[in-house]
Every structure is written in structure tokens, then in C-alpha cells.
């Protein structure tokens, strides 16, 4: 029951030197003190560090002093057992105590081999345990990433810019500067997506109007530039600051791109915000004192009553031009004159003779139990407005101009040509004899004697001779009250008394009342005509049947949402570039084929720019 302790060291040449000593004890003290059985001369070891006790044939128990854990078989502990059969080691400071069964002359003893070795290089160990060895270093990958990105995303696009300078139109294929695109091009400009330089002409210079005008030549100006400059309001603190920043960066005011903002989605380019209009048109008359326009800033609470262009006279037979005037709908006793006499109320009645006639002709013309608007008013192909009314298409089925029948053919007066009407009536009276009196034919009963026959002959000959003169009377009748023309038209009396040169004031129909605004009937087809037009109570053609702005406001809100009403910015009805086309919003919506089923469906459409995303 004893130990053999072997101190092992190496010469500088690597040769092993073993000094061994046999200790016949059951327990060994380990420490730096000279009386210890196993002497470990190292300052990392305390005087009495641990005790090894032999337990049975081949077990060694290690107990250390309190709070001085040692490493037993790789585990740091203050207490442990080691089987000498299996072997094990204890590490105390830089010393390793290997436990094994003795062999040879030490058979039966437990051999403790003490090695002193320098601790493994901590720095090397630290490196081994770090990730640094197996992943690329931070510094090198930072450089690689940064350089790759600068080359691919900066140098290459700049090269693309300079290499295609002066090129009329870029070829297909990839151009590196397209990776700078800040958002999809709008529908109309999508063909330019590969050709940045078509708009971004000069480097570090914001898009100029000249680039736009290269294609969009002939776009009408909103107003003369000097007047627009006067109309512009004083900017507030915030916006004048923003403007000064823009100026500092050489960005022009009021350019095309100020309103038409590109790279904001692949649909139609969004309409300009209402603010762009309202800026100048709020309090416009204070700055631009001679303007014809009234102040406006929002449809709901800052828009004047509509001022349609109304016809004052339709022009005369002498070729004088019709006269129009923009007149507000809230003018007292507003009247227009288009040359026609037409009571809408009479024609739309459900119960009068017109309705009766409509019923009679319904099989032929598709009328219902009475006339309705669409029986006469036919929309234009685009649905925006209505075709003009014509005698032939819309009136003649009831208002017949027939005056004679020859065989099965009905002769009618020529509509629109009064002199032809006069000639036709004259011809009628000249070319036909009066009906032959009954007593001039031979086969009938008569009073005795020739006297009565002779008188009849005399009268008939007189009538036949003078029949031609009765045409004058008929012509006068046609052009006078209860005559065929007079009912619907304003008759111009002959310039010379007794002459028959009657004439008719020309009828002119207004195709478009609102020349500064746009109204699309198609967009309103969910509504009845009578919702806006009070035609069924209008007794005179001179009534202006346009709805007032209040009617529109029942469904249309202003620039900000209000209940179920439709958000309606300026661009819904007005065009900035005053051309004859529909305003921007209407065009954009129509292009997308969005048409509402019901009024409330408008809420989700593009006309609400906040939701158009």
C-alpha cells in the first residue's frame, strides 16, 4: 500500500530524466512546502494544496484544501476519485500528476508521474478558439464589400452615363444607370425606363422643362408667365425655407416636374395635388386685380357658382354670329336663346297628347308609355356629351312635314330651307287642279236644265284659273301661328310687306356649356337625368336646365374626404393646360377602365389620391 512518485523532466535536447521515490504511506500531501510528499515548486501552488489518499487496490482519492479546486481529468473540482487502473491526471498549476498502476519493481504501488510543463500559449489558444481563423476577417471583407458596391453601383452607372452621352436613343440591353431608378416609371413614360438620359440630361442638374418639351411640344400654357408670377402668393415660413433649400440646390420653381412627379408607380402618373392650384387661386383677385376668374380653393366651401357659357342669341338670318356670355347660374331670371321653341314639360308629360302619340308610335320607334330624355338625346360615342338634336332623327316621327301624296309617295316640306318650302307650296298649287265638282261628271242625278251645270262650270273654271294665287295664303299659313314652322321656330317676317320671303332664325345647340370645366355624363350614368336636370317642369326652351353647384355637392366633397362623398380635387373637372381634352384625373381613370357601378363606388377609385396606392 504505497506510492511511487516519479518526477519527470526533459533536457534541452528533449531527453527524459526521471527521478523516482517510493513513499510507503496511504496518503500523500501535495504542495509547495518542503515537507510535502509531492513537492511542486511553483508560486501558483499553495503550501498544502491537496491530499491524495489510496482507497483500496487502485483507487486514489484527491481532496484539496478548501477553495483550491484542481483540475482532475479535465474537470475543475475540490474532490475526486481516480482509478489508477484506468489512469487519470491531476493538474495543479503548471504541473500534471498522472496516476497509473506501477509496473516492474513497483508492481502493486500506484505510480504518480509529475510533469512540469509550460502552460500552453494562451494567445495561441485564444486565436484557436476564435472565429477569426475560419471566416474572412472583418477588415478584408469590409474592404471587399465596400469596393464591390462602389464599383457596381456608383462607378459603373456613371460610366454608363458618360458612355451614352450624345446618343440619340439608347439601344436595348442593360444600362447600369438603370439601377439608380428610384421607382417604376409611369405608364406613359414606361418606354423611357431604359433611357435615363432622355430626361436626366445633365449630371447633377435636376430635370428641366426643355427635356419634357422635346416630346410634349405644343402643350398650352396655363397663363402668361408674367401673370402667373403676379398670381403667386407670399409663401409661409416653412415653404419659403423649402424653396430656399431648393434654390440652393439649383432646383427650379414651377417646372413641369413640380406638378408631374415621376417614379411614383407604374400606373398613370398621379394627378397634381390640389394645393398646386389652390396656392394661386386662393385670394387671386387681390393680387391679379384684373382677372376674370373668381377665387377658388376647394370644391365644397370655396368654389363659386357655375358660370356656363350661355347663348344670348343664336345669330340671325343675315349671317350674324351667335352671342354668348358666361353667366352665373344664380343670376335672376336666367334665360338663353338657341332659336328653338321647345317645352320640355309638354314632351315629358306622362298623360297628355304627346304621351298618347308616343304610345301609338312605340311599336315603331321603341317609345315607352311616354317620351323620356333618351328618346331624343343620344350620347356621343365617348359618352361625355350628347349628339345635337336633328329634325330628321328626333322630331319628324311626330312633327310630320307631309303635305301631299302622289301615288304611294308622301311629299314633305324641305326642313331647314325656307325658300324651298315656299317654292314647293307654290309648285303644289300650280301643278294640280282643284277637285272636280260632282255635278260636272255626266252620270249623276241633277236638277233639270243646264243652268246649274253652266254655273258650276263657270265657278270651276274661275277656281282653276285662280288656284295658283291661293298658294300665297298657304305659305303664309305655314309660317304663321299654328303653322308647321311656327310651332317650333322663330319665323323672320319678310323684309318687304306683302312679300313671301319668310325666313327662320337658325337654331344652334350648345354642345358644351362649361368651357373651363369638364363634365362627363358617362361617369354619371348611375344617376337619373332628372337628378340634376329639372326638364320635366321646364315650359320654355329658354330655361337653362343646368344644375347648380349645390346639386353637385350632394355627392362631391372637396379635397378632403367627407362622409360618403367623393373626394374631388381640382383636376377632376379642370385642366391646368387648357386644352379641349378631359382633365387629367378623368383621363387617368378612363384609361384604367375604372367605371363605378354606384356613386359610392367612387370612394375607392383613383380620384381619392390618398387611397390610390
Amino acid at each position, binding site marked *: 500500500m504505497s506510492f511511487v512518485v516519479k518526477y519527470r523532466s526533459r533536457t534541452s535536447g528533449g531527453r527524459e530524466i526521471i527521478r523516482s521515490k517510493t513513499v510507503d504511506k496511504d496518503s500523500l500531501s501535495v504542495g509547495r512546502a518542503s515537507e510535502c510528499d509531492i513537492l511542486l515548486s511553483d508560486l501558483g501552488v499553495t503550501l498544502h494544496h491537496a491530499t491524495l489518499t489510496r482507497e483500496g487496490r487502485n483507487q486514489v482519492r484527491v481532496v484539496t484544501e478548501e477553495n483550491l479546486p484542481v483540475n482532475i481529468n*479535465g474537470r475543475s473540482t475540490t474532490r475526486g476519485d481516480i482509478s489508477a487502473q484506468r489512469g487519470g491526471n491531476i493538474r495543479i498549476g503548471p504541473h500534471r500528476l498522472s496516476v497509473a498502476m506501477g509496473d516492474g519493481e513497483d508492481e502493486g504501488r500506484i505510480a504518480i508521474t509529475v510533469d512540469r510543463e509550460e502552460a*500552453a500559449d494562451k494567445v495561441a489558444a485564444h486565436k484557436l478558439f476564435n472565429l477569426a481563423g475560419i471566416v474572412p476577417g472583418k477588415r478584408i471583407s469590409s474592404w471587399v464589400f465596400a469596393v464591390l458596391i462602389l464599383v457596381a453601383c456608383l462607378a459603373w452607372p456613371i460610366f454608363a452615363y458618360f458612355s451614352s452621352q450624345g446618343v440619340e436613343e439608347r439601344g436595348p440591353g442593360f444600362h447600369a444607370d438603370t439601377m439608380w431608378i428610384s421607382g417604376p416609371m409611369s405608364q406613359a413614360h414606361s418606354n423611357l425606363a431604359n433611357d435615363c438620359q432622355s430626361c436626366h440630361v445633365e449630371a447633377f442638374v435636376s430635370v428641366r422643362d426643355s427635356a419634357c418639351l422635346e416630346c410634349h411640344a405644343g402643350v398650352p400654357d396655363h397663363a402668361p408667365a408674367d401673370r402667373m408670377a403676379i398670381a403667386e402668393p407670399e409663401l409661409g415660413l416653412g415653404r419659403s425655407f423649402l424653396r430656399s433649400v431648393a434654390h440652393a440646390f439649383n432646383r427650379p420653381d414651377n417646372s413641369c416636374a413640380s406638378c408631374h412627379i415621376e417614379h411614383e408607380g407604374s400606373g398613370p402618373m398621379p394627378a397634381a395635388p390640389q394645393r398646386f392650384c389652390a396656392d394661386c387661386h386662393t385670394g387671386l383677385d387681390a393680387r391679379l386685380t384684373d382677372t376674370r376668374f373668381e377665387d377658388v380653393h376647394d370644391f365644397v366651401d370655396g368654389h363659386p357658382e357655375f358660370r356656363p357659357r350661355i347663348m344670348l342669341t343664336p345669330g340671325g338670318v343675315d349671317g350674324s354670329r351667335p352671342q354668348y356670355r358666361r353667366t352665373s347660374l344664380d343670376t335672376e331670371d336666367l334665360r338663353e336663346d338657341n332659336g328653338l321653341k321647345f317645352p320640355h314639360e309638354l314632351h315629358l308629360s306622362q298623360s297628355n297628347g304627346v304621351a298618347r302619340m308616343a304610345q301609338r308610335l312605340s311599336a315603331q320607334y321603341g317609345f315607352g308609355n311616354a317620351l323620356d330624355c333618351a328618346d331624343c338625346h343620344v350620347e356621343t360615342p365617348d359618352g361625355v356629351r350628347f349628339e345635337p338634336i336633328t329634325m330628321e332623327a328626333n322630331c319628324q316621327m311626330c312633327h310630320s312635314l307631309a303635305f301631299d301624296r302622289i301615288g304611294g309617295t308622301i311629299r314633305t316640306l324641305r326642313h331647314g330651307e325656307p325658300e324651298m318650302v315656299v317654292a314647293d307650296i307654290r309648285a303644289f298649287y300650280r301643278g294640280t287642279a282643284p277637285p272636280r265638282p260632282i255635278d260636272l261628271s255626266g252620270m249623276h242625278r241633277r236638277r233639270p236644265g243646264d243652268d246649274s251645270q253652266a254655273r258650276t262650270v263657270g265657278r270651276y273654271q274661275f277656281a282653276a284659273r285662280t288656284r295658283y294665287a291661293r298658294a300665297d295664303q298657304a305659305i303664309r299659313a305655314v309660317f304663321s301661328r299654328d303653322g308647321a314652322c311656327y310651332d317650333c321656330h322663330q319665323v323672320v317676317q319678310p323684309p318687304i310687306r306683302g312679300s313671301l320671303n319668310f325666313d327662320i332664325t337658325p337654331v344652334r345647340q350648345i354642345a358644351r356649356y362649361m368651357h373651363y370645366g369638364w363634365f362627363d355624363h358617362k361617369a354619371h350614368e348611375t344617376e337619373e337625368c332628372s337628378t340634376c336636370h329639372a326638364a320635366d317642369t321646364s315650359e320654355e326652351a329658354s330655361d337653362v336646365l343646368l344644375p347648380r353647384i349645390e346639386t353637385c355637392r350632394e355627392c362631391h366633397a372637396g379635397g378632403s374626404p367627407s362622409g360618403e362623398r367623393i373626394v374631388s380635387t381640382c383636376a377632376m373637372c379642370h385642366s391646368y393646360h387648357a386644352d379641349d381634352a378631359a382633365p387629367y384625373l378623368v383621363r387617368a381613370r378612363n384609361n384604367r377602365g375604372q367605371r363605378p357601378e354606384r356613386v359610392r363606388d367612387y370612394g375607392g377609385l383613383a380620384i381619392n389620391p390618398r387611397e390610390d396606392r
Partner: protein
Amino acid sequence: MATRGAEPTGGEIDRTTLKGGVQHEGFLRYRRLYWAKMAGAISATLIVAYLLIDIKPRPNGGSWFGYTLGTAGVLLIVWLAFLGVRKRAMTPGRWSLKAWTSAHVYLGLSLIVIGTLHTGFQLGWNVHTLAWVLMMIVILSGLFGITAYTTLPGKLSTNRDETTEAQMLETLADINRQLFDAAQPLEAGSAAVVQRAIDENAFSGGIWRRLSSRQQIGGTAEALAEFRARSSAGDSPLDTLYDRLEALLSRKQAALARVRRHLRIKGLLQVWLYIHVPVTFALLAALSAHIISVFFYW
């Protein structure tokens, strides 16, 4: 530790500053989450502003609000990147590195809000979105980093069990040496099995192997199974040797497992920085490209 063990000798340590309940205040809890509150307030304010300010036709980085957010964002990014410089100089107090790090973490997180609102949620295949994506990678890797720093050191310490890395290496080397010595009497085939066990170390393999928590079957496990089978058969004259080898191999197996766990945890603690830092520089490059391109094609 130092203060706990020190005796109150002289005025070297002012005891009055060490009140009861004084505990370590890390950069995450610095000044009772001062910077967390600050960053939260900034983010909330910006979100409310974004919702209230109606940019026509749709929110975008080129509006006045967009430029404001973008400028704030780029200044913040540059400042955040300066932590790399700042951390090399430790200073105490209000301007301590701890304060700076705390601000770095929380203001960095608020950059998610600033940067994303700057995009106006318009993302695409372009250099601008590249910058945003890189920014998000940096922020998310940083988020992973602070999560790792909060949760993993405890596990690392438990696994280490007060041994140092050098000791772990030595343990492995010890076992290898003993295996080598013990295996001398074996014939060639068995010796090769032991040699494979000796050759196995925990450091081979790439980054994925190191971060993976999957059990790895190597030479040690195979040799252990081999000698365990032989020693349990129990009819060989080499039985004691097999027993000894089995014991050594299972010790090596345990030591390897500990080293691998150590490596894995340490790797997780470190790996995020290998993304965070290089992608930060990639982000700075992409930001330069973003800003220059915007003004180049203005």
C-alpha cells in the same frame, strides 16, 4: 470582485457610493433605459408625423419629409459607425463608452423606423433599396448580437466550468498523449482506430460546422464504440487495455463535446460582428452611391 475583497482601508474606496443593491448596470439598462426611451419617443413621433403629413402623390424619399428623414438617417448611420472608433477609448461618466454603446444600440434600432419611413415603403430592385436592405441586415445582426450578449455568456461560463481555453487544449493534448501511450501494444488495425480518435480535434470544419449544434460523429466516437464492444465481450487478454482505452476515449469524447459547445457559443457570440461590421462598410458604400445617384440624376 475587487471591491468585495478589499478592506476599507483609508479613503481609497468611497463606501458611500456603494449602497445596498448596487449591481452591475450594463449598456442595455444604462440610466434606466434612458436611450431606449429616447429612441422609442423618436420612433413614435416620426410614425405619427408620417401618418399626419400628407405627401402627394404618395410618400417618398424625395419629399421634404423624405429628405429630412434621409438626412437624419445618414447622419445617424455615420455616428453609429463611429462606435468602432469610439470603443477604443474608454471614458467614464455621462460620456462613458457605456453611455455611447447604449445610445448606439437603441438609436440604431430606431433607425429601422427612420430608414423605412424614408423609403415611403417604395422598394424595388435598385441601389436605393440595396442601401435599405444592407441597413436592415446591419441592424438585425446587431439585434442578434445584443441577444447573444444577454443570453450566451451564462451558458459559456457553465460549459467552461472554470477551465480556461488553454486548459481545455491541454486536457485534449493530455488525453491524446495517454491514448498514444496506451495504444502501443495494439496491432495495426486497432492502432489505426485509435490514431483516428487522436487525430480528431474540435477545430476542423468551417463556420457552419462550428455554429451547428448537431452531434458530430468523428474518430473518437467510432473508436469508443469499437473498444466498448471489445471490452464488454470480455474474453481477450487485452481486456484491461481495452478498459483503459474506453475510459480514455470517453474522456476525450466528453472533452471534445465541451470544447465544441464552447466553440459554438463563442462562435455565436462573435459571428454577428463578422456580419455587422463588414456590412456596415458595405452600407456606407451603398449610401454614398444612393446619395450621389439621387443628385446625379436629379
